[in-house]
C-alpha cells in the first residue's frame, strides 16, 4: 500500500468504532491540555520576569563586594572571630535586628579589579540621595540610581542614558511624566529637569539634567530614575562636600561592567577569578537564576500531572488498538492473503496509533491556547491589572510542536504492541476466525 492509502485506511478504521476512539482521544486531549497550560504559564512568567529583571539593572554588570569570611555562611556563630587587619576598614550595615559587618573597599581595590582581564570599567556604587526633582510643576521626591552598563529597562519613550556623554542625562519612570508637567511620554524627551541636593554641611544646591527616556514602571524592584555617569558624579560631589575624604573614598560595593557579548561560561570564569582575589561578584542573572530554578521545579511538578494523564491515555491507546486488532482479525488475514506484507500491516496499525495521538494532542494544544487567550484577556482586565505587560500564558510554536510530536511518539510506542500482534497474525487462522 502507498502511504496515502495506509493513512486513509487507518483513518477510516479509526472512525469505525467512534465512541471508543473519541474516548481515547479525550484522554490524550486532557494530558496535552495540562502540559501545554503548565508550560504556557511557565514561559509566560519567565519571559515577563526576564523583562522585569531588566528594570533591576544592567545584565552586563557585576556587583562586587569584599568577601568577609567571618560574616558569611551558617558557620559564623561557632567559628572564631576574624583577626584584625589594620588596613581594612569596616562599616556596619544594619539589617533587621543585627548589624552586619561589611568590609569596605578603597581605590586600591578598584585598581585590582580593573586589572582583572576583560572588565570594561569599574566604578564605585555610591548612594545618591537627591532632595527633589522639578520639571514644569512642583517639586517631587526622587529615588535616583546610577546606570551602570547598558540600559535594559523597558523604555516607553526615548532611550537609556549614555554613560559616555558629557551631558547630564536622566531617565524617569512613567509615573513621573505628568507630575513633571508633561502631557505624554514623548513630550518630556529632551526637556530639562532640575534636581535639588543637600551637601554634608546642610547647604542645598541644584543641578539640571536632560530627560532622555521614560521607563516602564517596574513591578519587581524599585522604580528609580537613572542617572548617567556625568550626572551621578556631579550629584555625588555635591552630596559629599564637607565629608572627610576617608569616608568619601571608601565603598561597600563597586560595579564592574563587562562586554555585552560575554557568555555564561565567561561570566562564571570572571566570578571565579574574583573569588580567588577575595571578592564576591554577582550579576543580575545570578539572582534571576535562583528565581528560575524555583519556578522550573513548580512547572515540572505541574507537568508531572500531565505526564500521568498521558501515561493513562497511552494504556487507553494500547487497549483501543488491541480491541481493534481483535475485531479486524479477518480483515488483517484477508490483507495478508492478498499480498500485504507484515511490515505494512505493522505500519498500518502504527499510523492508527499515531493518528489518535495527533488528534488528541492537536485538539488539546488548540484548546489550551484558546483557554490561555481567554485567561490572558480576563487577567489583563482583572486580577493581573497591576502587572503591565504580563501575558500569563505564552505558547511559543516550538513548545506546541514539541508537545504534539512528543505525544505522537508516545502514541506510536503504545501502538507497537498491538501493531506487532496484528503483523504476526497467521492469514489462515485469521480467515478461519469467526
Amino acid at each position, binding site marked *: 500500500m502507498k502511504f496515502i492509502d495506509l493513512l486513509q485506511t487507518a483513518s477510516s478504521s479509526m472512525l469505525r468504532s467512534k465512541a471508543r476512539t473519541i474516548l481515547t482521544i479525550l484522554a490524550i486531549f486532557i494530558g496535552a491540555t495540562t502540559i501545554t497550560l503548565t508550560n504556557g504559564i511557565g514561559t509566560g512568567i519567565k519571559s515577563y520576569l526576564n523583562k522585569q529583571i531588566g528594570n533591576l539593572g544592567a545584565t552586563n554588570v557585576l556587583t562586587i563586594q569584599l568577601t568577609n569570611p567571618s560574616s558569611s555562611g551558617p558557620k559564623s556563630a561557632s567559628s572564631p572571630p576574624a583577626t584584625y587587619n589594620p588596613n581594612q576598614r569596616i562599616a556596619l550595615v544594619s539589617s533587621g535586628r543585627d548589624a552586619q559587618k561589611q568590609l569596605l573597599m578603597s581605590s586600591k581595590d578598584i585598581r585590582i579589579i580593573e586589572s582583572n582581564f576583560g572588565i570594561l570599567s569599574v566604578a564605585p556604587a555610591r548612594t545618591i540621595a537627591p532632595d527633589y526633582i522639578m520639571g514644569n510643576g512642583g517639586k517631587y521626591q526622587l529615588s535616583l540610581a546610577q546606570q551602570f552598563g547598558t540600559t535594559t529597562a523597558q523604555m516607553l519613550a526615548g532611550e537609556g542614558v549614555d554613560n559616555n556623554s558629557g551631558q547630564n542625562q536622566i531617565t524617569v519612570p512613567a509615573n513621573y511624566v505628568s507630575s513633571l508637567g508633561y502631557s505624554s511620554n514623548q513630550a518630556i524627551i529632551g526637556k530639562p529637569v532640575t534636581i535639588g541636593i543637600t551637601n554634608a554641611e546642610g547647604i542645598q544646591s541644584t543641578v539640571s539634567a536632560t530627560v532622555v527616556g521614560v521607563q516602564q514602571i517596574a513591578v519587581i524592584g524599585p522604580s528609580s530614575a537613572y542617572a548617567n555617569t556625568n550626572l551621578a558624579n556631579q550629584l555625588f560631589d555635591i552630596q559629599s562636600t564637607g565629608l572627610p575624604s576617608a569616608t568619601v573614598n571608601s565603598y561597600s560595593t563597586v560595579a564592574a561592567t563587562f562586554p555585552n557579548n560575554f557568555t555564561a561560561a565567561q561570566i562564571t570564569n570572571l566570578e571565579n577569578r574574583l573569588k580567588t582575589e577575595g571578592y564576591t561578584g554577582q550579576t543580575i542573572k545570578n539572582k534571576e537564576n535562583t528565581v528560575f530554578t524555583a519556578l522550573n521545579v513548580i512547572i515540572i511538578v505541574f507537568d508531572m500531572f500531565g505526564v500521568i494523564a498521558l501515561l493513562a491515555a497511552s494504556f487507553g491507546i494500547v487497549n483501543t488498538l488491541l480491541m481493534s486488532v481483535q475485531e479486524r482479525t479477518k480483515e488483517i488475514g484477508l490483507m495478508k492473503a*492478498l499480498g500485504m506484507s*507484515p511490515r505494512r500491516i505493522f505500519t498500518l496499525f502504527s499510523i492508527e496509533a499515531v493518528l489518535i495521538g495527533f488528534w488528541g494532542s492537536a485538539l488539546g494544544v488548540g484548546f489550551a491556547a484558546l483557554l490561555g487567550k481567554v485567561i490572558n484577556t480576563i487577567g489583563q482586565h482583572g486580577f493581573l491589572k497591576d502587572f503591565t505587560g504580563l501575558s500569563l500564558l505564552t505558547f511559543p510554536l516550538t513548545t506546541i510542536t514539541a508537545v504534539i510530536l512528543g505525544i505522537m511518539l508516545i502514541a506510536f510506542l503504545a501502538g507497537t504492541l498491538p501493531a506487532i500482534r496484528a503483523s504476526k497474525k497467521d492469514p489462515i487462522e485469521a480467515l478461519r476466525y469467526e
Partner: protein
Amino acid sequence: MSSVVATKNISKTYGKGEAAFSALDGVSLSIVPGESVAIIGKSGSGKSTLMHILALLDKPTEGTVLVDNQDASSLTGRQLDVLRNKRYGFVFQQFFLNENDTVLNNVVLPLKIGRVGHKERLERGMQVLKAVELDEKANSRAGTLSGGQKQRACIARALINNPGVIFADEPTGNLDSHTGKTVEDLLFRLNKEQTITLIIVTHDPDIAKRCGRQLHIIDGRLTTKGDI
C-alpha cells in the same frame, strides 16, 4: 508439460510426538495452465490445508511446492506476497468483504495493496465490476448486497489483477442453489474465456463434476492420481 503449480510428496503435520496430527500425507499433484480442478473431500480431510499450501499461504512440513516449476521455498516473503497479490485470486465461502465500505473499494483492495494509483484503481475496478454485472452497485455499501452479489463482488476482487489462478474455497457454500448456479457459471466462464486456472475446494459433487479434473482427498491422502 509445465505446471502453474505442483507438489512433490508433500506432508503437513500439526503438533509433535504423541499429539502429532497428520493433515496431509505424501500428496503429489500437478496443475497445468487453464485447467479447472476440484479438490473434493469431507471436512477434516485436509482439502483446505492442501489449498492453503497450493496458494502459498502455508508451508508443508515435508516435500516441495513448485510454482511455475520453481521451488516455492526459495522465494522470499516479499516475493510470495507479490505472487499472491499479482498472480492469484481468492474467492472465499464467507466472502470477507468489508461491509462498511463501498463495493468498489472492496474490489480494488488488491490494487491498493499492490500500490496502484487511484485513477487506475477506479478504471480497473469498474471494469471488473462490469464483468460480474455489479457496476450499478459500485458505490453501495458491501453490507447491503445479497449473498450472490457478495460472491460476485468477491470474484471481481479476485479478477482485478488479471490472475493466472483463482483459488475458490467452497464458493457456493453459503448460497442457495439458484444463486450458487450463477456464481458457478461465472467461474467456469472465466476459466474458459480468459483461460484462468481454476482450483476449487468443495464437497459439492455437482460443482466438482463441471471441473476438468477431480482430486479426491481422504484422511490427507489423494485417492486419485495427482498428475494428468
